């Protein structure tokens, strides 16, 4: 096995609504351009492409095939797709490079969440027999999880609001963020509930966006990037899809992925927490102490493009390494309801 590093990351602006199609081409073309400009690469240098997106979100069959137009896939390219966040596409790309099938790979994710009613679309990721026919929406399910922790005194509504305020404050340094600014915790807590016990600030915004990450094997990495972010651990795990069968106040799959990837000793953790209390669950599951800088990009609460936000977390973690701002960082991605599935990518500078 050889070492693999992240050498480039680009993301589209996180916005509430774009005019573009649901096949992502309009968002992806400039994102690819930016990633190529960072490295001097062209599309012909990419040995493997992998995308993450969803037809349910796009409202059309095989939407990822149309997205391939953004690549310029002629002559044919080696390409794959996951119906998951682009972070899992990056995992597949990483395996391709590790095993020598490709030397340089590009993973991307895209989602036009504004095209449909995101809360209803996400109900269709649930068990199709006993859950999806009730159309439980993503915010309501997160609210059930939040209350469990509140009533067990694991966190407070104030602690949740502090997560939101910290996210917006951090996002001031991220020009691509959708929500940023200084927020007063008392003012946040004065807002009404939208799904008691959740307020609007507890929920990630609905976001259209896209992201791309380029990884390369060791020889190429050093040529392409002054300070590559070397991948030292990359793991994903999953918990039961039956919401009533597990303790929703913990994320055993996040803990297991973090342990397997060795998440210890990181300076920065970019967490894909679409709800404030989920950041608190993840910090506990991943053993992140107070010294760890959490989501300096603002995280998913500052912009949550479906199927791209997890990949973007890894991208921002890599950027923290490449800029010299961190020696060791992790990017996390989640999928499914109430942190059901979790992925951890640990990166370090050398």
């Amino acid at each position, binding site marked *: 096995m050889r070492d693999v590093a992240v050498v480039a990351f680009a993301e589209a602006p996180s916005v509430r609504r774009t*005019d*573009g*199609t*649901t096949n992502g*081409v*309009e968002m992806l*073309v400039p994102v*690819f351009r930016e990633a190529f400009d960072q490295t001097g690469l062209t*599309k012909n240098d990419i040995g493997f492409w992998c995308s993450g997106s969803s037809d*349910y979100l796009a*409202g*059309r069959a095989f939407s990822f095939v149309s997205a*391939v*137009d*953004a*690549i*310029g*896939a*002629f002559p044919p390219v080696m390409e794959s797709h996951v119906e998951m966040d682009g972070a899992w596409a990056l995992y597949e790309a990483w395996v391709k490079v590790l095993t020598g099938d490709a030397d340089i790979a590009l993973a991307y994710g895209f989602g036009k969440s*504004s*095209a*449909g*009613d995101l*809360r*209803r*679309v996400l*109900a*269709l990721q649930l068990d*199709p*027999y*006993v*859950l*999806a*026919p*009730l*159309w*439980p*929406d993503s915010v*309501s*399910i997160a*609210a*059930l*999880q*939040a*209350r*469990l922790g509140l*009533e067990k005194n694991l966190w407070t509504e104030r602690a949740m609001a502090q997560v939101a305020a910290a996210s917006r404050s951090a996002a001031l340094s991220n020009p691509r963020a959708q929500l940023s600014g200084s927020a007063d915790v008392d003012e946040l807590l004065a807002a009404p*509930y*939208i*799904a*008691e*016990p*959740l307020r609007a600030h507890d929920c990630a915004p609905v976001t259209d966006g896209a992201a791309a990450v380029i990884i390369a094997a060791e020889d190429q990495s050093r040529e392409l990037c002054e300070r590559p972010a070397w991948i030292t651990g990359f793991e994903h795990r999953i918990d*039961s899809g*039956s*919401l*009533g*069968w597990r303790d*929703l106040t913990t994320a055993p799959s996040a803990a297991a992925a973090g342990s397997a990837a060795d998440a210890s000793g990181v300076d920065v953790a970019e967490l894909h927490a679409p709800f404030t209390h989920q950041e608190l669950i993840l910090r506990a599951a991943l053993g992140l102490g107070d010294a760890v800088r959490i989501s300096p990009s603002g995280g998913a609460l500052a912009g949550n493009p479906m199927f791209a936000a997890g990949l973007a977390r890894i991208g921002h973690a890599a950027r923290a390494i490449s800029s010299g701002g961190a020696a060791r960082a992790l990017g996390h991605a989640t999928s499914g309801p109430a942190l059901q599935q979790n992925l951890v990518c640990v990166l370090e500078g050398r």
Partner: protein
Amino acid sequence: MPPPLSAPLEISFDYTRSLGPVLARFMQSLAQRRILGSRSADGRVHVPPAEYDPVTFAPPQELVEVGPAGTVLTWSWQPAPLEGQPLARPFAWALIQLDGADTALLHAVDAGSAAVLRTGMRVTPRWAAEPAGRITDIECFEPAAGTATRVAARAATEPVPVPGAETGTMIAPISLRYTHSASAEESRYLRALAEGKIIGQRCPSCGKVYVPPRGACPTCGVPTATDVELPDTGTVTTFCVVNVPFQGQRVPVPYVAASVLLDGADIPFQHLILGCAPEDVRMGMRVRAAWKPPEQWGTTAENIDHFEPTGEPDAPYDSYAHHL
């Protein structure tokens, strides 16, 4: 530039889902107004029943009857119910541990007001008037008098089959609504069609002309920028004779669906070939668009009803061979 065209799009589909032996009995029992859980080897009772134990992966030892009353473990308030949810008025979602169960079931609680809800409250199912062997046979739960009692789950007697349940399937209707946007290039194409013109776009890198325009050259991966007006004549590159009837078909079978390469374009598009017998259609045949009357034109590809033969000599094979 005007904003891209967009239109509402509703996608509906009835999934037919196989239930398997465990969920089939669960659903059949719901239609009998009884709720079953599964007992694992360790004695734990899962509700809804586990097809395989999540820890040991073994099939359940037996199915047992639980509830019907239960206790709210957590709840959230839904002030503005969404389409398809169990109730149209504000309600609570709750994880409910039914008496005799060790896990919780997600369902709605019709409590009238969030002020009524509390964790630990007792609830009981309200059954749908017309059972169908689905989870929605429980219309919702409602607050119940009394306190939680640990009720031993009773071994389930074999439920009486309900009509339709013998197939072991359920129908799960799915319906989603979108605002579907055309790309900027597709919008220009559709707006041009409304004026009886066909617009393609040329790739600035390789010079190829794409119709309909695609936004990015699939060969070069760069945005296509230059509009090119194309004639409504072209060549059949390849075709098939459609003999299979299907729902929504607007032309009686047999008929011809063909790839038509418009003159000056570098990619063929699909259309119908009418105006001659299907057996007379051939590769290389020269065709022209048959437009609907202008008063029927809109921003739609349907402005061209079909293509029909021009009567010109066939195009030589070499002129379109590289488009096959």
